[in-house]
């Protein structure tokens, strides 16, 4: 391939060059202790070698909390919140997180477009980076290898001496204008594709598996371990459910309509008017969450709606693994197939 080479020493000047043009958001460990995307004020604070951020870049387009409108009770008037483009460079994004954003684009563009998300999403520039899969990443099983550059403007492939910088779009190329500390690169970059975790089957087969797993005992078994804290939902880069609340001020004169992320693992999520909760059991909620990743949307799009980032597993306080659940469903399905064939044969005999 043809590309550019960025040495280790030139990384900080590269980030500063980006930050001189536009706001940059990048992984940082100083603000929260965990890896989180933050605005770059000092290029030295950027962490490029990391496993995964607690929340993906989704948070910039679908914030954890936002005010939708403000109203006045005395004259019954309201004003919608002005939504602005995020208009920034997202640096050091792992490709599963960008794939998740592309999936959210699908969810929010179709049927009933989600204007706030789409508005914020315009003009975002993505500079990706390769990563070394840990024991929880399984992106390759859902079709995303660590060097997949789909959707990026620039991509940094890690090498021993620095990075091979791949230019993918015109906006990416423009970001490099006036930056001298890169050289031509000709050849191959080292590919790191060793995933420790993987699913036993591709989506084409999972479609069959999930069509036959609704009554699998695993949902009840897993529900016995689960505390229903919702961590899996809230850290998932493809989860997008939210709740809307009205908050009136103590003066009773004005208030705001706010929304915050919600999750299908939380008991109150399916509470409807009158107090009915139609997914009252943890087992049913667990099944619903996994079906949202591999069946309900996937049957329409043909793709898994999981990007293999491993967040729901590594952050789960009870240690429940999505890979283990899916693989158990696959092996149970396979066993059932063998049994069915056996029965067929005995009938034919």
């Amino acid at each position, binding site marked *: 391939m043809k590309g550019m080479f960025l040495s280790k020493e030139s990384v900080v000047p590269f980030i500063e060059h980006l930050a001189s043009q536009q706001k940059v958001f990048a992984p940082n460990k100083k603000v929260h202790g965990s890896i989180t995307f933050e605005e770059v004020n000092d290029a030295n604070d950027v962490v490029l070698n990391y496993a995964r951020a607690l929340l993906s870049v989704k948070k910039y387009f679908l914030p954890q909390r936002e005010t939708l409108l403000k109203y006045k009770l005395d004259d019954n008037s309201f004003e919608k919140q002005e939504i602005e483009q995020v208009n920034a460079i997202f640096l050091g994004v792992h490709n599963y997180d960008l794939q998740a954003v592309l999936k959210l684009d699908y969810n929010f563009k179709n049927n009933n477009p989600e204007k706030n998300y789409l508005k914020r999403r315009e003009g975002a520039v993505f500079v990706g980076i390769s990563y070394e899969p840990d024991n929880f990443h399984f992106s390759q099983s859902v079709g995303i290898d660590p060097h997949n550059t789909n959707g990026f403007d620039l991509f940094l492939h890690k090498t021993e001496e620095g990075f091979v910088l791949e230019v993918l779009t015109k906006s990416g190329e423009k970001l490099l204008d006036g930056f001298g500390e890169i050289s031509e690169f000709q050849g191959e970059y080292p590919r790191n594709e060793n995933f420790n975790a993987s699913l036993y089957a591709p989506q084409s087969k999972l479609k069959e598996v999930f069509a036959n797993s609704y009554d699998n005992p695993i949902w009840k078994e897993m529900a016995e*371990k689960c505390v229903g804290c919702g961590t899996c939902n809230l*850290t998932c880069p493809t989860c997008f459910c939210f709740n809307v*609340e009205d908050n*009136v001020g*103590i003066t009773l004169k004005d208030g705001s309509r706010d929304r915050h992320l919600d999750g299908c693992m939380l008991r109150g999520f399916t509470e409807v008017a009158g107090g009915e909760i139609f997914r009252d059991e943890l087992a049913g909620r667990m099944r619903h969450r996994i079906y949202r990743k591999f069946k309900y949307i996937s049957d329409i799009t043909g793709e898994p709606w999981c990007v293999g980032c491993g967040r729901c597993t590594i*952050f789960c306080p009870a240690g429940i693994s999505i890979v283990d659940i899916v693989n158990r469903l696959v092996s149970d399905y396979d066993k059932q197939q063998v049994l069915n064939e056996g029965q067929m044969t005995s009938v034919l005999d």
Partner: protein
Amino acid sequence: MKPKVAVFDFTGCEGCELNKLNFENELLDIIAHIDFVEWREAMDDKADEYDIAFIEGSISTPECVDRIHDIRNRSKILIALGACAVCGGMNAMKNQKPLEVAREEVYGKDKDLFPTLPALPLSAYVKVDFEIRGCPMTQQEFLRVVTALLMGKNPIIPDYAVCVECKLKENECVYGNGMICMGPITRAGCDAQCPSFGQYCIGCRGLVSHPNKEAMIEILTNHGLSVDEADKKMSLFNTENREGGLK
């Protein structure tokens, strides 16, 4: 007419009550909409009937039992204020030993002068209309509840785990720092204050409404606690008598 509001204290540290007197920015707005008619900590007046009674503390003596029934009979809406009133609170730890032993330890030779009962939440004796949780209650939640009632609506009280608020705030999980946290099973609503400042959650807002206690015990034992220690962690703010109670 402004609703008549009273505040009462039972067994507790009175911190939740005090918290309300600390509403420096909002107190004028609050009293623009409600009339405080009885509040021992703040005024001398008394009244016969109340539209809303806020009750702090747990019920732990025979005298408390009579008083809480009396207040309930004279109140349209009764709200449990803070962990002691809602869950029994810290003082419910005394329920873990025989009452006589507890009485002797505290009052020694004068113990006969102080009749005592197991410390229980208000709901063990009277109907509680709404709960404001926490040790102490948060001011924001108190304001939200008062606002909702003034508007004739049911207040929205979170019934999900503290983990939700931690994740929304991108807090690093304190389990990763070797701490034992009750967040996964404790009701949110505090904006995950303790974990946000690098501390673990001790569960002061009580358990979520449908807790999977066995799963939480497994989490705690996987982090090195014995089953007994795990159980103690969980009951710090949750008296076992809570479910069923003495209703």
